[in-house]
């Protein structure tokens, strides 16, 4: 890995996020949907954060961000700010 971090594309994060939330059983379909209003719980939050870190590096989704900016758009933006790997398939974990 180089020190130079290429920010992942926000649209790609959004797509990954919606797919992941659906896999977690949420009813989220668009960027305005809220994580908690579509069925997310504190346990689902732990799962989503772990999945985000798995793909975008440790610290990619700070829990406080998820709990204060819980729309799909807000979550994607947080991952965009905090990602340490671009999350492209095949890239190794940070």
């Amino acid at each position, binding site marked *: 890995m180089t020190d130079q971090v290429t920010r992942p594309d926000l649209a790609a994060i959004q797509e990954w996020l919606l797919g992941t939330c659906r*896999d*977690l*059983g*949420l*009813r989220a379909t668009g960027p305005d949907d809220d994580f908690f209003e579509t*069925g997310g*719980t*504190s*346990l*689902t*939050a*732990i*799962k989503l*954060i*772990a*999945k985000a*870190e*798995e793909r975008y590096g*440790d*610290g990619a989704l*700070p*829990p*406080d961000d998820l*709990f204060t900016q819980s729309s799909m758009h807000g979550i994607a933006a947080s991952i965009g700010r905090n990602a340490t790997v671009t999350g492209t398939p095949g890239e190794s974990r940070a």
Partner: protein
Amino acid sequence: MDRLHAGDAAREAHRRINRTTAPYPADQSVPALFARQVARSPESTAVVHGRDRLTYRELDRAANVVAARLAAHGTRPGDPVGVCVRRSTDLVVALLAVLKCGAHYVPFEASWPDGRLTGLFEQAGVGVLLTDRVEELTGRFPPAKVVAVATAPGDDAPDPGIGIDPGALAYVNFTSGSTGRPKGVPIAHRGVTRLVFGARYADLDSGAVVLHMAPVTFDAATFEIWGPLLHGGVCVLYPSERLRCSELRTVLAGHGVTVVFLTTALFNTILDEAPDTLDSVRTVLTGGEAHSLRHIGAALARYGPGRLVSVYGPTECTTFATFHPVDALGPGEESLPIGLPIQNTRVYVVDGDELCAPGRAGEILLAGPGLSPGYLAAPELNRDRFIVRDVDGVPERLYRTGDRGALREDGVLMFHGRVDDQVKINGYRIELGEISYHLGRHRDVRQNYVTVVETAAGEKSLAAFVVAEGPQCTPAGLRDYLSELLPGYMVPGQIRFCAELPLSPTGKVDRRALLATAGAQSR
């Protein structure tokens, strides 16, 4: 005195599993046992929270300061003190300070609704609140005095030097109550010492490093805090408010945590998402709900035998009542046993007035010094749940758990569900009746039925089915109404309206028909 009758097989099996007597300091209070560790190793680390660290001497001194402050506000032996302190070294200072006064702590969350908190304070007789949120709590509960927990490094005060009877109360936790009123469960000092001395379920000694992560309103915290601190070990506080697997992994490895307790739901989540989180820990205790064999199997494969211990126990029996080391899964095993009683604890499987022989199911009853002296201000409930029976020629005070179980041929206890509608969701113990009671009092609700459904992701969640009086009744309105009365984890995630509640031939709500017609899956 009524007798529990027993055939030879039942008597023999119960005698065998209940030989649990082990030496423990039954004549000492929690502060007296803590003082022994202060004298033994004053400079050892007692509590760690991020960069904050207190030695035994520092923790003792800070607790003396806060104890003096509480005494100046009128706290006397036998008094309850409400405690609302974020997870921090101050939290441990607060708990120890209350105990040093000979008082008992009543932990609560500032986020609980005012009405519920007022009720809890009345029930427990709380008139003093010890907190790190002085501004937030001042004036919110007018008659209560609000006392700050913060201390400065130079502060000092002598130990209050109060002799505390080990039978005196140490704390009160509240659990859900089906009549709409939470049940206050007081626990004595001796209940705590019985839990953490001579422990069969984990190594607790001066080398113990135990993670504290559970809300202190939940009795796992009793083990997490007093387990290490009464042995000269280290209590490591999880640093952030909210859990992140990667941070947990770093904390566990970085501080060399030897024992961690995880609720079943959290354990399963970690196994699914980030099993490397627990790689460094010697003993993983998990319990609170029936275990999933898939997750237990995955944990065994990853961590190996000798690391994983399933624990079981209601709040009324001080945190843990039974344990089961998971070293292998037998072929064809359908559920994980809840195991054998921990030290100084006895377990009985009872059907009517008979002890059950292995293989026969009955209600699980518990006995021993871990038992609560009885719910606060609930004489009728106490007569029903805490009973005295002659067992094998000896009078035994028993707590009826409401859990069903059966002894296996080898004496190991198996769990068979509940006798009532109490449920466990993410470690929280909830009486569905308590939610239903409050819904039923809403003027727009004609009928209601509350149950547990599973989300598409396999998580358990609460669902309420409501027959409304009129169109003005909305799910959001009912949710707001319940949020004023109940903690967030008891407010149903989905509220669905139906024209009527389908009934089974026996006149009970037909849950299956209701779920089918309402399409009550979470999506």
